[in-house]
């Protein structure tokens, strides 16, 4: 089959790899109809995530039709149309039973390695390094889905791929980020990063009833998309984030802050961004923390910081003093996708939200390598790429 494979920094190739096979009674093989490039795929592309190996199939946002099942996949049948959550979940361990699916205790087949790095391993993920199980990803014609009886979301034929594809990651990720904010009707929610996850954070905060939602970025078309969804835009190239947030909150700061950027934050004229870039280039830190520092500084005391943005390793110069003295609460984590998807699918079916608004580029899988470059450099107004194998 054809797939997009990782071969090093900035090096994604469209190439032929062996077809996946059923390896376990709970496996299924999915014939991929649509897949997407996620912002966190760029962290792999830039080689900021460790434990990748040359030839790894990438991609963790995908959907399609079940074409083969193992002997123990319960009600999952050949021909079912499913979206596959990016977190692989057994559905039976202590964490899955509590709904903490992204820290499933059984699905990471490299648990011993991940335990050494993280203390305790999280769930297995598709196409996201050998620290998370080393599973082949979904930017491919076919994918083997482990624990397929639990790792799927059945979707009705009445909805298009573009309407349901993002149930596998970015929609529930934005939703969880907003839910973690414990939004009240008087809240101002400030969101850093107008990429796809940031866009869903805006829509989720609006749906959950925030008084005002503020988006901080410097890409005009992305800010326009956030404004269309109900946000107030702050372009940090044109105005001071701190001053504008003070103005919008009568000098008190936003109650809730969301980091939808993660480890590659960069602000061209910010001293700490220059510092981080230098340290990262010298391999003295792995992640850049500008957004975290700014959130801690601007957040109202006793506020909440929600962090759906991906971090991979170590950061430097985190202002723990302000974080502690302001009594801020930090909530983060990979998304417990299946915890939210029943509700979110219902919102889509009811016409409350149409996630396809975020799709700006659609291309064949063979154009994937070039689309990685286009997405990275935000060329041609690229916000979200959907690939069709």
């Amino acid at each position, binding site marked *: 089959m054809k797939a997009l494979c990782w071969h*090093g920094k900035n*090096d*994604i*190739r*469209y*190439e032929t790899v062996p077809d996946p096979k059923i390896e*376990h009674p709970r496996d299924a093989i999915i014939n991929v109809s649509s897949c997407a490039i996620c912002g966190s795929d760029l962290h792999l592309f*830039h080689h900021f995530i460790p434990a990748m190996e040359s030839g790894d199939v990438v991609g963790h946002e995908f959907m399609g039709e079940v074409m083969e099942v193992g002997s123990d996949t319960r009600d999952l049948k050949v021909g079912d149309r499913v979206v596959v959550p990016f977190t692989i*979940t057994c*559905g*039976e361990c202590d964490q899955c*039973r*509590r*709904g*903490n699916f992204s820290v499933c*205790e*059984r*699905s*990471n*087949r*490299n648990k011993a390695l991940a*335990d050494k790095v993280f203390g305790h391993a999280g769930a*297995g993920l598709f196409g996201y390094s050998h620290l998370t199980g080393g599973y082949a990803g979904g930017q491919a014609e076919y994918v083997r889905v482990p624990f397929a009886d*639990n790792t799927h979301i059945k979707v009705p034929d009445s909805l298009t791929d573009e309407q349901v594809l993002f149930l596998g990651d970015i929609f529930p990720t934005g939703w*969880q980020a907003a839910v*973690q904010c*414990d*939004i009240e009707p008087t809240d101002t929610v400030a969101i850093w990063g107008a990429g796809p996850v940031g866009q869903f954070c805006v*829509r989720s905060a*609006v*749906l*959950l*009833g925030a008084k005002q939602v503020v988006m901080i970025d410097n*890409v005009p*078309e992305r800010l326009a*998309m956030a404004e*269309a*969804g*109900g946000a107030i835009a702050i372009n940090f190239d044109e105005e001071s984030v701190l001053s504008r947030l003070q103005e919008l909150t009568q000098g008190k700061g936003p109650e809730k802050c969301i980091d939808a950027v993660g480890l590659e934050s960069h602000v061209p004229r910010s001293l700490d961004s220059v510092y981080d870039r230098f340290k990262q*280039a010298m391999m003295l830190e792995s992640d850049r923390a500008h957004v975290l520092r700014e959130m801690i500084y601007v957040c109202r005391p006793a506020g909440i910081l929600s962090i759906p943005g991906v971090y991979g390793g170590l950061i430097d110069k985190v202002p723990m003093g302000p974080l502690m003295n302001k009594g801020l609460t930090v909530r983060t*984590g990979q998304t*417990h996708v*299946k*915890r939210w998807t029943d*509700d979110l699918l219902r919102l889509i079916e009811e016409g*409350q*939200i*149409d*996630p396809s*608004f*975020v799709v*700006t580029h659609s291309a064949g899988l063979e*154009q994937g390598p*070039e689309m990685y470059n286009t997405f990275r*450099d*935000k*060329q*041609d*107004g690229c*916000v979200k790429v959907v690939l069709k194998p």
Partner: protein
Amino acid sequence: MSHDRNRSLQTSDQLARGLGWMGIGLGLYQLLAPRSVTRALGVEGAEPIVRLCGARGVATGIGALTVNPKPSLWARSAGDALDLAALLALLADRDHPKRENVKLALAVVGATTAVSLYCAQDQTRRHAYQAGRTPDYSGRSGFPQGVERARGAAAGGGLPARSTALPSPASTPGPRGQATASRPDTRPHAKDSAKGSDYDY
């Protein structure tokens, strides 16, 4: 140069990496053994300048190996131009004792300058941040019924209250955690979670 659409990494990306490693190697050599360079070019006494050039080569070399090598490649090209000017000045002296070595250095630096300029130009095109058309996304609300009707639409009925919605390591499984009925556990060492993943491979 050919453009392979099946790969994200193109010729100039690979050349940039080569230039990066070469810059680091030559830079370290100039930093650590400047006298051998000055002797070969017949400019004894210029060791501090050679060390400075070495430091420049290492810095731009590291930059050329990063995700966006464009700024470093331009800096490297500018540095190469300075080196060419210095070598041409030496060559202008017809009595220079190491004239042949200077000619050789000029050829090598000239060739790498050409490669560096090609890479810098191609990378500028390929890494053109926010290049191309800027579409109008002001109509993409994502709310088919409008933003105002969406406000707070999911704040109450049907969705779980915060205490049950938030992920928690609490020992009591929440009502939303019963995704699937448990199946009989026949795995070997099923009670010993420290042994690693229970998914047998």
